[in-house]
């Protein structure tokens, strides 16, 4: 058997999922309660999975390091969720959503997965409405839609600027119902720190109780990770402070392959950095680009206030370069263009920021209409910057936001480790080299509500109901390894703080593995990260003890993992000698500065197998395009 078998069902693209659902084995209703499933993460993907599996009758244990399921990072998604409902009669369809997603991903995603995603997108909206999610509506009482970064149809459903919050609260309400019914046991303030394999099959996890410091052992018939993305490797990103890669990284070190780690998304509309004490970056939803116009001065180092720069001295560079998509050009293109004009010295006051201006829309639609659409985003902006965007254009700059890469999964969302399933942002599956706006929420809920309930059943149907005991030697071994690592971290007692190391790593990543990459920079990055990693294990200072609520220790483990992951991201970027989506290699661009793919040699998924820290084997899953014709992505 090939190492990587994507298990894409045979047959016509349109029928694959339907046929596969029919062909999968079922667990008889009376037997479901004999199977235990661990779900790590209670974001959109984890909460929807845990709830749906509990409803089916499995015994589910759900884990989150947060104090409540509702705090998962999904809560902060603002803009919206896509579905192919075609309620607006503007020509949308399952096929169009599929096609847009494959194209948006710059032809580096699996066709079959993406088509399934588009197929179930409509069910997601139905489900959420039935749960009481208060989506925005029109006067006639039907659901409202808007168009969102990179789409020419209005297929995005939204709940003010708080779509992620409302979808998550919906999924968490379903989860809470199962907790109340006793079908899901919810463990909060628990951080998964090890995956336990027995004979190469995922059989459990170890978690640290973040209040007492105790290590707790949990065994199950299947383990599902829905632990989110790894953009915080950059230190500054739009992700929540505590989002981290530890769960997937520790699984990677136990054998799960990491796919396309270099595919990271830099979001074009974030607030610029204010100074050294900056702890994270704030996203301004890109729905703002529907009505805001992006511009900078035509002159370098123009120190005039925006109002003083006359119309003909402004460069609306997105509208100029990409007339048909303009301000709605995809994220990678918009981000890179912003960096370009700022590198030329044409950013706001010569610095790293561009304007996002609502003056025209306010004149055209009235202040009230703008307030209705974006009121709370404008408020957020004003609270943070002290400036009122109704009067002065917003200042924005790109920031790390989303990670398309993640653990490799087959069509069933199972990793190469049997029994280990990966959902949501934590897997690599659907977005190729670039994710379209409003598609992550869709994918998280598709995975959790409509894919995993089927595919996990197919897996469990062939498993015996006997449960591995938590005193099994593999559990004991994992526990002592974990205790060893914690002891080591606490015993170094060096001179630099954990955050200091994280910030240093973040700077290397942003400068050399960020928006634009090149051979030389990537090689330097690898050397610098290695040096930093060895310094970490000699000179980090982790204060406090293990048997206690210790946030420094929590962060120390996560940063230790980033120091390995960062290197793999650089290595992957170095190995992919082409530009595609969020991965822009300066050596590979067209004459007018667009990303130049190399379909001949790079139409594959890179899946990295861990050997030792700093040592990996590359496996390739070739991507077959049967339905979509590979073409140069053009948004001109």
């Amino acid at each position, binding site marked *: 058997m090939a190492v990587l078998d994507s298990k894409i069902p045979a047959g016509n693209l349109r029928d694959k999922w339907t046929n596969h659902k029919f062909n999968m084995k079922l667990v008889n209703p009376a037997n479901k309660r004999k199977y235990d499933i661990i779900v790590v993460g209670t974001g959109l993907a984890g909460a*929807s999975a845990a709830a*749906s599996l509990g*409803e089916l009758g499995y015994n589910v244990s759900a884990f989150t390091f*947060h*104090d*409540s*399921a*509702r*705090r998962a*990072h999904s*809560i*902060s998604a603002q803009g919206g969720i896509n579905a192919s*409902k075609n309620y607006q009669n503007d020509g949308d369809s399952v096929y169009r959503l599929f096609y847009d997603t494959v194209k948006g991903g710059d032809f580096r995603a699996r066709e079959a997965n993406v088509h399934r995603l588009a197929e179930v997108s409509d069910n997601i909206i*139905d*489900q*959420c*409405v*039935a*749960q*009481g999610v*208060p*989506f*925005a*509506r*029109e006067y006639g*009482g*039907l*659901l409202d839609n808007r168009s969102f970064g990179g789409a020419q149809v209005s297929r995005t459903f939204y709940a*003010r600027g*708080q779509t*992620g*919050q*409302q979808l998550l*609260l919906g999924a*968490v*309400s*379903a989860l*809470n*119902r199962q*907790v*109340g019914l006793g079908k899901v046991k*919810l463990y909060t303030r628990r951080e998964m720190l090890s995956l336990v394999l027995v004979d190469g099959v995922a059989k459990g996890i170890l978690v640290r109780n973040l209040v007492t410091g105790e290590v707790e052992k949990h065994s199950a018939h299947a383990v599902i990770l829905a632990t989110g993305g790894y953009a915080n490797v950059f230190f500054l990103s739009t992700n*929540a402070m505590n989002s981290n890669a530890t769960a997937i990284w520790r699984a990677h070190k136990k054998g799960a392959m990491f796919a396309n780690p270099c595919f990271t998304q830099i979001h074009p509309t974030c607030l610029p950095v*204010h*100074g050294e*004490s900056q*702890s994270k970056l704030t*996203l301004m939803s890109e729905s703002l680009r529907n009505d805001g116009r992006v511009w900078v001065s035509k002159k370098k180092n123009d120190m005039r206030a925006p109002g003083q720069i006359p119309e003909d001295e402004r460069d609306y560079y997105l509208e100029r370069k990409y007339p048909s998509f303009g301000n709605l050009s995809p994220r990678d293109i918009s981000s890179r263009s912003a960096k370009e004009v700022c590198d030329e010295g044409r950013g706001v006051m010569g610095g790293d920021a561009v304007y996002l201006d609502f003056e025209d829309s306010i004149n055209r639609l009235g202040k009230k209409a703008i307030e209705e659409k974006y009121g709370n985003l404008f408020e*957020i902006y004003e*609270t*943070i910057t*002290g400036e009122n965007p109704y009067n002065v254009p917003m200042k924005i700059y790109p920031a790390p936001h989303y990670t398309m890469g993640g653990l490799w999964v087959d069509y069933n969302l199972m990793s190469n480790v049997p029994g280990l399933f990966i959902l949501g942002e934590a897997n690599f599956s659907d977005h190729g080299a670039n994710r379209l706006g409003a598609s992550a929420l869709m994918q998280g809920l598709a995975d959790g509500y*409509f894919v995993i309930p089927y595919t996990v059943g197919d897996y469990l149907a062939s498993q015996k109901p006997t449960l591995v005991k938590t005193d099994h030697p593999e559990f004991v071994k994992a526990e002592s390894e974990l205790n060893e690592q914690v002891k080591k971290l606490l015993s170094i*007692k060096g001179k630099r*703080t954990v*955050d200091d190391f994280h910030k240093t790593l973040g700077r290397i990543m942003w400068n050399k593995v960020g928006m634009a990459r090149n051979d030389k920079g990537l090689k330097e990055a690898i050397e610098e990260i290695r040096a930093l990693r060895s310094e970490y294990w000699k000179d980090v*200072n982790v*204060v406090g003890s293990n048997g*206690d*609520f210790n946030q420094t220790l929590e962060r120390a483990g996560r940063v230790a993992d980033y120091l390995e992951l960062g290197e793999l991201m650089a290595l992957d970027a170095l190995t992919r000698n082409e530009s595609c989506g969020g991965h822009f290699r300066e050596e590979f661009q067209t004459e007018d500065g667009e990303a130049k793919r190399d379909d001949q040699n790079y139409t594959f998924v890179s899946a990295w197998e861990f050997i030792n820290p700093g040592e990996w084997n590359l496996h390739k899953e070739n991507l077959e395009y049967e339905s979509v014709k590979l073409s140069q992505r053009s948004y001109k």
Partner: protein
Amino acid sequence: MSGKNINVSLKIWRQDGPKTVGSFAEYKISISPDASFLEMLDEINNDLESKNQIPIAFESDCREGICGTCGLVINGQPHGPIPKIATCQLHMRNFKDGDPIWIEPFRAKAFPIIKDLVVDRSGFDEILQTGGYISINTGGVPDANAIPISKDIASLAMDAAACIGCGACVAACKNASAMLFVSAKVSQYALLPQGQPERSQRVQSMVAKMDELGFGSCTNTYACEAECPKGISVTNIARMNRDYIKASVTSNSVE
């Protein structure tokens, strides 16, 4: 942006664990007015760690006012002096050079302290687990546009659903009542057609759980609304009370 640094002196509540006695400790810092309040605490912590001292435990996650993780009482006010924002959205430009700043955890019987400024708010989830949902399973639901809902009603439901579960309402209330939080969830569902089938049962079980967990009763002082970062309105409490009374009168499942 970016003005001159300001100097502030802080009195911060330190408490090792739930059962130990806490007290205020003093710290001083010079900080950019563009820094957020929590970034100011990050700086203090980084400094403490470099001096081998235990940093101040406090929680935050999104730092955008949406996850509800953060929550400090600043100079006597939950989430600080500026209305309608969460602690993480407060910026140092709202303080003047030399200002004294007192920082305490959210205090309530139902929110025991874990460490320093971190409290246990799991009671909120326990309430939601007894009825804060619509009892449907995944799949088999009607088309999303099958039931039209007027824009105004959807908007009112959204107002209520905007609660971030931070607990400031409880911390602000002299009775440590959770009425604003509970009524927001009850109202969201009471307003929507999808919430009707379980309307009476829901309000009764959630209120019963709230009482059981030791949250106080509501005496209509409205301190909750004043401190709520999301502007959740006390009209939700009135709506819940009406539902509760109606449910007690008409339902035969509960005495």
